[in-house]
């Protein structure tokens, strides 16, 4: 196994506020890592730093071997990010949106139907504008948009939010399958048991730092 994410004493500042204050974390290929912590602990910032969406101000940060202080765009082609928001084009149909994401990521248009079926979105909803879907259905479209790009690193912020019990179990199965096929998953969640069942490792953050790591026990 090789390190997909390797952060050493990483400091990141948003505006004038330090969001990461010396993070040390190494995540190996195939791991499913749960990030825990109170609101403002730095979970979302750590995910965004892994995606190269925030600048690293100090420390050493590598994702897929790329130095994130020099070239934070390079690893993005291997990364799928699901944030708090679903990042959806509200006026597109669900199928159109996923097809767009599939083709934009170098995949096939036909992958979209398979992905939507995989997340359990009823086929009658595929040709409905996303703005007309419920919050849970939109979340499913967002997850399907990740699946079609087959990311090697999944970065998920509260991925279970708005999903019902069956869909949460489906999502866990999707993420486990991805990890079994060699992908790495890092997700932030406040869902207790459900998230701990999924994860192979639990990392707790506080004040922008890692304060507990189950792999170190």
């Amino acid at each position, binding site marked *: 196994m090789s390190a997909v994410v390797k952060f050493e004493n990483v400091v990141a500042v948003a505006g004038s506020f330090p969001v990461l204050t010396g993070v040390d974390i190494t995540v190996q290929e195939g791991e499913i890592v749960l990030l825990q912590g109170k609101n403002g602990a730095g979970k979302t910032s750590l995910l965004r730093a892994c995606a190269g969406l925030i600048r690293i101000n100090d420390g050493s940060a590598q994702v897929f071997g790329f130095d994130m202080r020099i070239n934070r765009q390079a690893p993005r082609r291997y990364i799928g990010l699901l944030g708090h*928001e*679903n990042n959806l084009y509200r006026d597109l149909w669900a199928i159109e949106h996923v097809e767009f994401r599939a083709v*934009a990521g170098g995949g096939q248009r036909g992958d979209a139907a398979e992905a939507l079926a995989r997340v359990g979105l009823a086929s009658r909803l595929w040709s409905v504008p996303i703005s007309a879907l419920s919050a849970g259905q939109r979340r499913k479209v967002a997850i399907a948009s990740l699946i079609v790009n087959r990311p090697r690193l999944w970065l998920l912020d509260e991925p279970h939010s708005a999903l019902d019990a069956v869909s949460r179990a489906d999502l866990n199965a999707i993420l486990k399958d991805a990890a079994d096929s060699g992908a790495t998953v890092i997700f932030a969640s406040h869902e207790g048991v459900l998230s701990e069942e999924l994860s192979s490792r639990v990392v707790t953050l506080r004040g922008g730092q890692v304060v507990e790591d189950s792999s170190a026990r």
Partner: protein
Amino acid sequence: MLAEVLLLARKDLRIERRAKVALGQVAPLTLLIVVVFAFALDANAPLLEIGAGGLYWVAVLYGGTLLTQRAFELETEGGNFDDFRMSPIKVHSLFLGKSLSLFIQICALELVLTPAVLLLYDVQVTDWLLLIAAGVAGAVAFSVCGVLWGVMAAGLRVRSTLLPLLLIPVLAPVLLAGSRAFETALGIRADAGWSWTSLMFVIAAVHTVVGLAAFGFLLEEN
């Protein structure tokens, strides 16, 4: 790269077809501007005729600014801007794809405005080729400038007010050149209409080169 450009432009135009912002909201609003000018200057018909080219381009400037804002709202609403930045599509394709979709929408706007101006301001076209060339040149210049400056404002909270402040001074030379070229095409002045049209193409070319070079940086720094 062409496939990526077309993919992005097609996506934007499909959204526009559904949302009908350009033709359903922006075009009627700019038509209203043309009508309001017609009412305001009705007492002085010759003045309206002389100002037809300029008033047309003022309406295009206003509508084009709204369409530019809309083009980036698509990418910023619902957290989409992160996805736009994370997109595996090359930055050059992002710039050109956005520009292409904006170009088509501005052309559609011009197609609505042109007959309205001819009818309401009672002017005749003496050089259709120049009129079309100037319209296309203006639309190209508007679209590439709009995308270049639009991305600068896209990540900011004050984007809705900042973008017009940034864009309108930059587009002022296009407004001037377009007005002069139209005045020649409408037979109002015997001036160098083609030179003004060429100037708009030059402005478009310069902004395209700058956009291709700087778009990735601007996207990251937002």
